[in-house]
């Protein structure tokens, strides 16, 4: 069942045609999705033909087929990884039982909440990125943005399918609501804070796709362990698409750094103003963007102590990252984990029950992964002979969720008072002036093979195509 049926209105590999009720319900949702795409999808791109990757099956040979497609004609659909009829639940209280093909009544509300929350992030990032096409630094980057946009749209489909198929009427209502909330809307915002932040420029976009799509990787990986088999299979396939999004972020920042280092070497300077005057983004600004996106993203993992997290794990709804590779008992009762809190103006660690700290466990896995990538960015500077290094700020820096919310802290992890925070905030987080400067560089460059002056060309093109390939044909 790996081949996707493209002859149906909604391409799928889930035998949608055999379930007329579900098919009709999804076909009812589809026009609303297209309206949503037209209203808040990529701006001004209706007639572009974009060199997009489309899945024709979910096996390795079929899921990355490339060709020029109008985004509106992209075959959004429902693709699940092949299932294993004998799969067993491998963690929590139901460990050893057969994985569920249907939602158990007692977990219905929690599962719906998990799926809705995940689903809400997918259209949000499209909304956050809708203006970026107008300021792309190259045709190559423009194509990557659009690829991400259509796949985020498909991820929304993935969650909507689960809601429609497994949650009856309230599932359909939740699916409708996913199209009604809007990122940053005062009256009807997206569920999670980071998805209401603006993505004002391409540096922010690269940071977002590096950090926030990496959050996606960890959340989806945890859901891919789920006892609810359709969720596990759906998220497994989403993960393959998510990889490209992280690649755009990681290589994007790398290319910005490479260009900055080149300018610094040419001018023989580390003076931020001189670097800016030469049209490149100074390393201080890049560090501040990093601080912001990192701290906003680690909030996405939720409170450091959470009874919901414990319930989700014990009931088998959401595992840990790489649950199957861990060698403990996969039940975690009676174990503890260290979380941070501030006591008498000092950060201290305290032991809390492991099950309640699973958000923190996932956050720490994410942090390890993020830090390693920042190390790879630093190699770019190292190779160019620039002594500056980027660092991730302290876990407690600029947090809005959990025990650390609202605590004023320097990036190094020193608790500071309001006065110092106010005085130095612009050293640590991007200031209005930083945003204005980066915005000033955002001109549109879309001639094949040409790149804006603040970013280097990529090492190789997409799908082994040359860098100057016509990735987007403007209609």
């Amino acid at each position: 069942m790996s081949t996707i049926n493209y002859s149906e209105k909604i391409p799928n590999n889930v035998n949608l045609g055999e379930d007329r009720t579900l098919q009709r319900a999804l076909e009812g949702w589809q026009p609303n999705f297209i309206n949503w795409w037209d209203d808040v999808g990529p701006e001004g791109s209706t007639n572009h033909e974009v060199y997009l990757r489309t899945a024709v099956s979910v096996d390795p040979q079929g899921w990355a087929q490339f060709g020029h497609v109008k985004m509106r004609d992209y075959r959004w659909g429902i693709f699940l990884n092949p299932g294993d009829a004998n799969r067993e639940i491998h963690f929590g209280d139901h460990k050893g039982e057969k994985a569920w093909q249907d939602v158990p009544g007692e977990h219905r509300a929690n599962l719906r909440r998990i799926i809705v929350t995940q689903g809400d992030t997918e259209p949000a990032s499209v909304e956050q990125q809708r203006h970026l096409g107008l300021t792309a630094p190259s045709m190559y980057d423009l194509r990557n943005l659009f690829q991400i946009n259509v796949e985020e749209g498909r991820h929304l489909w993935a969650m909507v399918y689960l809601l429609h198929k497994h949650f009856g009427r309230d599932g359909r209502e939740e699916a409708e609501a996913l199209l009604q909330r809007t990122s940053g809307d005062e009256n009807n915002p997206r569920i999670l804070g980071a998805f209401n932040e603006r993505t004002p420029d391409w540096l922010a976009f690269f940071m977002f796709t590096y950090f926030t799509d990496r959050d996606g990787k960890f959340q989806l990986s945890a859901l891919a362990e789920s006892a609810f088999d359709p969720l596990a299979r759906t998220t497994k396939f989403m993960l393959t698409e998510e990889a490209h999004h992280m690649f755009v972020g990681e290589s994007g920042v790398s290319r910005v750094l490479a260009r900055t280092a080149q300018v610094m070497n040419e001018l023989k300077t580390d003076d931020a103003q001189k670097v800016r005057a030469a049209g490149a983004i100074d390393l201080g600004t890049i560090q501040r963007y990093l601080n912001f996106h990192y701290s906003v993203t680690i909030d996405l993992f939720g409170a450091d102590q959470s009874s919901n997290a414990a319930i989700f794990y014990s009931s088998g709804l959401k595992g840990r990252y790489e649950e199957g590779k861990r060698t403990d008992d996969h039940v975690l009762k009676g174990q503890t984990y260290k979380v941070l809190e501030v006591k008498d103006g000092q950060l201290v660690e305290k032991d809390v029950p492991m099950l309640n700290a699973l958000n923190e466990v996932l956050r720490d896995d994410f942090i390890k992964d993020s830090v390693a990538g920042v190390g790879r960015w630093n190699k770019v500077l190292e190779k160019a002979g620039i002594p500056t290094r980027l660092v991730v700020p302290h876990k407690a820096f600029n947090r809005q969720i959990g025990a650390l919310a609202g605590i004023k802290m320097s990036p190094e992890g020193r608790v500071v008072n309001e006065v110092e925070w106010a005085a130095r905030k612009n050293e640590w987080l991007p200031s209005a002036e930083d945003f204005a400067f980066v915005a000033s560089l955002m001109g549109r460059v879309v001639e094949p093979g040409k790149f804006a002056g603040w970013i280097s060309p990529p090492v190789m093109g997409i799908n082994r195509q040359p860098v100057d390939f016509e990735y987007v044909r403007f209609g």
Partner: protein
Amino acid sequence: MDMAVEAGVIKQHLIDPEICIRCNTCEATCPVNAITHDDNNYVVRADICNGCMACISPCPTGSIDNWRTMPVVRAYSIEEQFTWESLPAELSPEELEAAGVAADTGDEAGAAPTPVPTQAQAAAEPVEPVFNSAQYGATVPPWSAAHAYTNLFPPKSPTTATVVGNFNCTEAGFDSETHHIVLDFGVVPFPVLEGQSIGIIPPGVDAIGKRHHARQYSVASPRNGERPGYNNVSLTVKRVTEDHQGDPVRGVCSNYVCDLKVGDTVQVVGPFGASFLMPNHPKSHIVMICTGTGSAPMRAMTEWRRRLRKSGKFEGGKLMLFFGARTQQELPYFGPLQSLPKDFIDINLAFSRTPGQPKRYVQDLMRERAADLAALLKDGASHFYVCGLKSMEEGVVLALRDVAKEAGLDWDTVGAALKREGRLHLETY
């Protein structure tokens, strides 16, 4: 364990840690669990990886597609790979030889190290004689090619075939219209192999009242037919509207063939050709270099490999195509070519007359892909096919020679081996 391992040499699959973003796609995709990671790197276990390539196309970065020829005993362990910050260089021919990988075995590893000429030797060489590309063309087929039947229907006793398909396989409205013609032989035996050609006798007589002679066209379909299981072949025929000087001329046979209707019958002779044949060995690599209707045999070979792969009888031999045309619109089979999976065939297209773009010829692309071609030149399982306009031949063979030289190979040795072993075939007109 595959044959290469038994021979003491492997092509070790490695991931470039400088480009990899640690997204886990490869590990999640690998069907045999050969890929794993630590906090630093994603790595491939040499003893488990079977080179199935399932991980290649899902990788978003391209970091996954790296290979090193290694003696089994020296294969990089995963512990070693975990520490890497960049990929190690290829082992030199001397290192391979020292490790017992013989220079002259022509084995899977393709380790055919030849001494790099020293400066003194190079200086002592006389002035280079005029380069004659044709001398490198083989007159024997690859050792694993199937047996070819030839001349079953000689010019004096042609057979009849029925046209069952005729369509323009270039974009309509361009001067250089190229047609894809399908001929059916009914119950008359007419076995052909990829790379062979057949002759068509146009009806009527020429200016001095003599019967037209047959024109030869390469077969564009694989051995089991354009439609598998049917006794039919396809041809790629370009409508000739001007001669080599650019003066208007109406090609007798090409216009006859391009204007054929389904149901018409034609006089056919052949088949011809016993050396421009594809290797049957499932691990052999095929590099195809062509222009225009020179694509016919390349299409045939590619389609046969595609059918083999579909039926599971294909073991990872590489296909690499360099295809030149004046513009994309003039490139036969452009659409179908685009839909072939990237992990199945490595396609490089050169357009020499795209408005606003610099002219690019197949040999330019070959030089750009020198790294990949050099690896193939070193591999005794690689076969090179050149088909198309006469003017391309010298440039292509020169490009191969230069790629070999830059990779430290002695072209005279390599070129002679290619010819002797039926691994370089030139068919130009």
